[in-house]
């Protein structure tokens, strides 16, 4: 049936070429609606009078042919094919009074409307593109004279700004910016500095807690801070390749030792 349909339409060279083009160049079509519109041209009638049934057959024949030629069809072409097959059956079978939903005629009319609308938009696009266009048919002034924007900047300041500004300067000496109380804070920098001096002697695995500075291990707040800083500093030294660390299990003491050249760490 498919062959037949296409044979029928090969009356002119251009039609035949169009039909071949469909097969070879599916990518050249902007989706199933575009393909349907192209097929509808072979009917050579007003889109309003088009036979949707015939169009459905042509489309299905096209899909069939593509299948035979092992062409990959995009999913939306197949969805359309399924829908058209459904539409075709609706159009051919007498309406079932039990069946809900729109009739085959209504669906066909909608498809015809879609095709007509797409065609109308194409015609409109062509008309639009054929208009005298700026830069192609119609030209703007070639040497436009820029409007010199004379920007006049006025600066504003209020008396309050002025006085606050003055006050700011005259009281700067009294001003002590808010800083966090850092009595119980041992920084990573402190720890790093301390450890750099000590790791030279760490030939054996040693618990990092032994690196806490003196006087920082009794007060819990201080110990926490010092431990965290020391651990962070240790990581930093590991990153630099200066020490190795290990921990035998979760929560076990963390140990470190000086890294020896050419001696890969076991961790």
């Amino acid at each position, binding site marked *: 049936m498919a062959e037949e349909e296409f044979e029928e339409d090969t009356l002119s060279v251009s039609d035949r070429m169009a039909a071949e083009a469909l097969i070879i160049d599916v990518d050249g079509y*902007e*989706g*199933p*609606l*575009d393909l*349907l519109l192209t097929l509808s041209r072979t009917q050579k009638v007003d889109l309003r009078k088009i036979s949707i049934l015939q169009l459905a057959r042509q489309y299905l024949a096209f899909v069939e042919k593509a299948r035979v030629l092992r062409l990959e069809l995009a999913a*939306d072409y197949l969805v359309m094919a399924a829908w058209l097959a459904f539409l075709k059956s609706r159009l051919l079978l007498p309406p079932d009074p039990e069946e809900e*939903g*729109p009739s085959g005629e*209504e*669906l066909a*009319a*909608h498809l015809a*409307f*879609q095709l*007509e*609308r*797409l065609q*109308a*938009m*194409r*015609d*409109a*696009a062509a*008309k*639009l*593109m054929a*208009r*005298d*266009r*700026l*830069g*192609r*048919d*119609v*030209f*703007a*002034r*070639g040497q*436009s*004279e820029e*409007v010199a924007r004379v920007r006049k900047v006025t600066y504003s300041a209020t008396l309050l700004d002025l006085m606050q500004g003055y006050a700011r300067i005259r009281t700067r000496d009294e001003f002590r910016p808010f800083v966090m109380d850092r009595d119980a804070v041992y920084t990573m920098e402190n720890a790093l500095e301390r450890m750099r001096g000590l790791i030279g002697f760490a030939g054996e695995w040693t618990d990092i807690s032994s690196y806490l500075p003196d006087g920082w291990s009794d007060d819990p707040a201080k110990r926490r801070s010092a431990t965290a800083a020391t651990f962070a500093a240790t990581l930093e030294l590991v990153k630099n390749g200066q020490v190795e660390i290990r921990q035998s299990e979760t929560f076990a003491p963390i140990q470190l030792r000086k890294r020896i050249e050419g001696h890969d760490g076991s961790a």
Partner: protein
Amino acid sequence: MEAPEEQEQSLFEAPPLAEQERMVEAILFASSDPVSLRELIGRLPHGSDPKAAIELVQKRYEGRGVVLRKIGDAWAFRTAGDLGFLMQKETVETRKLSRAAIETLAIIAYHQPVTRAEIEEIRGVSVSRGTVDQLIELEWIRFGRRKMTPGRPVTYVVTPSFLDHFGLESARDLPGLKELRAAGLLENRPLPGAMTLEDSEEDDVVDNEDQTELFED
């Protein structure tokens, strides 16, 4: 009583209309982009009547090699359409628009404000990002108001520079617009029996209102 500068300025009379015409001529001639009425008011001496001056200029240039065109609410001098053939030298080769881009542009122009989903419904194929980007880059389309439908999708509308490029005074002057509307081809008709029937009908109403606003004054 008005602001002090204005008082001062109104002490001087506005220049005679013929002089205003010269001024409008100079301002519009100097600019390659359309100049809005508002900008003209801002640049002409206080008390001038740019509208009347524009009319004089327009009349003066009627049928000349250079004509005054209205674009939206702005004006610009443009070479006469019939003399384009002389200007080949001036033509700037523009990137050829793809078929998808051309169709998408037309759909936006005729259906605006229109959502991406509506464009896809009309073309029967998804709209690639590149297509919309290209049109936005050309400054022919821009985002319009969001639609008051579920998801509040953005819409696209055409820009004044679209009008300028295609020599349209307004979107109402799109070729064949009336016929298309009369034929019902600018409607957003839903697929019969589709689940979204009610939604889309609501869409339609919003659409038409929006369009009315855009196309009619």
